[in-house]
């Protein structure tokens, strides 16, 4: 038996020092399905980037931290709220969804 308790795991991350994302309509990409996830980006007050992850794959906090560090390095955005519902997506899929979501708010501009 696994010693990891059943249920969802909630992970929070925050980053500072990015460029303002500005005003935009909330965007949603991806679907909560096996090996997939949904990512919602919303504008937020303040100068930070707050990330909340709800995931059914427990015990991968350090990997999420690394994936989100990479995300913030690629897209150093401030005034941003990132909300994720995950059903066991791999790090590569998570990174692609995050990039897709940012592309939606920037209208395809890098």
């Amino acid at each position, binding site marked *: 038996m696994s010693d990891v308790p*059943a249920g*969802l795991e909630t992970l929070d991350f925050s980053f500072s020092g990015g460029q303002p994302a500005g005003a935009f309509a*909330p965007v949603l990409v991806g*679907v*909560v399905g096996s090996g997939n996830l949904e990512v*919602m980006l*919303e504008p937020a007050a303040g100068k930070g980037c707050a990330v909340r992850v*709800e995931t*059914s794959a427990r015990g991968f906090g350090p990997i999420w931290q690394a994936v989100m560090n990479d995300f913030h390095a690629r897209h150093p955005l401030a005034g941003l709220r990132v909300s994720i*519902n995950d059903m066991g997506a791999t790090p590569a899929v998570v990174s692609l969804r995050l990039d897709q979501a940012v592309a939606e708010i920037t209208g395809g501009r890098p």
Partner: protein
Amino acid sequence: MISYAECSARERLALLLDAGSFHEWLPPSERVMSPHLAQLGVPSAFDDGVAVGRATLDGRSVFVAAQEGAFMGGGVGEVHGAKLVGLMQRALRDRPAAVLLLAESGGVRLHEANAGLIAVSEVMRALLDVRAAGIPVLVLIGGANGCFGGMGIVARCADHIVMSDVGRLAMSGPEVIEASHGVDEFDSRDRALVWRTTGGKHRWLTGDCDALVEDDVAAFRAAAIAAIGESKPFTPAALEQEHALLTKRLHALDTTDTTDRDEAALLWSALGIADARQVPELSVEAVRALRTA
């Protein structure tokens, strides 16, 4: 040509409706989510697997809902069902030209048990209220998960059903039939059998759907536009006509000997389709031309 089956619910809304016209109610940012799934350790979706709102279709005002089959098989949970019911009830007040339901669902979301079952029954009642008010309800079926269980019943309560050949419509899904009646009765892994008995071509030939289209978003759009004005009054006479059709179908086949035979092709033959065994190989256009009535 863009595959309807391969689109997500939100992609379908973006491509099927007039460009940029969809206005969503209870969008994901409102976080109106399932109160049940988290307790079971199952991730929720911000929209509970369905997007509802208003839009225009060929310039006419419509209300629309799109189910996301990739989230829990499009299963109808408490919130998901309540969004559909709210859309229908608002249609009674605002009287759009039609209500469109882009259905893709395995039926009740079993995780939510009675709440899901009640939700589906409420959707049926709300849909029939909309029909009774003379507002046509159009159901579009072409997603990979098909339209099954309670949503199969909901679809058949509507005025008009548009299906693609890859779309499927039934009450019990293939795995359910196999589990309850055995693999001899129905082999759920026999994909050709599954499509012969639930697929769009079959539904078209038996009269269970009103339009058969290619797996193409533009074809679904054109069929929906053509059907907007087609309200079918839900009267005792219409119900009796439906019962007569079903009785005729029930007796079209000899059901005493059912060993090793292709019942779908036999039924099509009994319905007057020549060379019925060829139906699965035919193009959508050719199958469309086979229906006589």
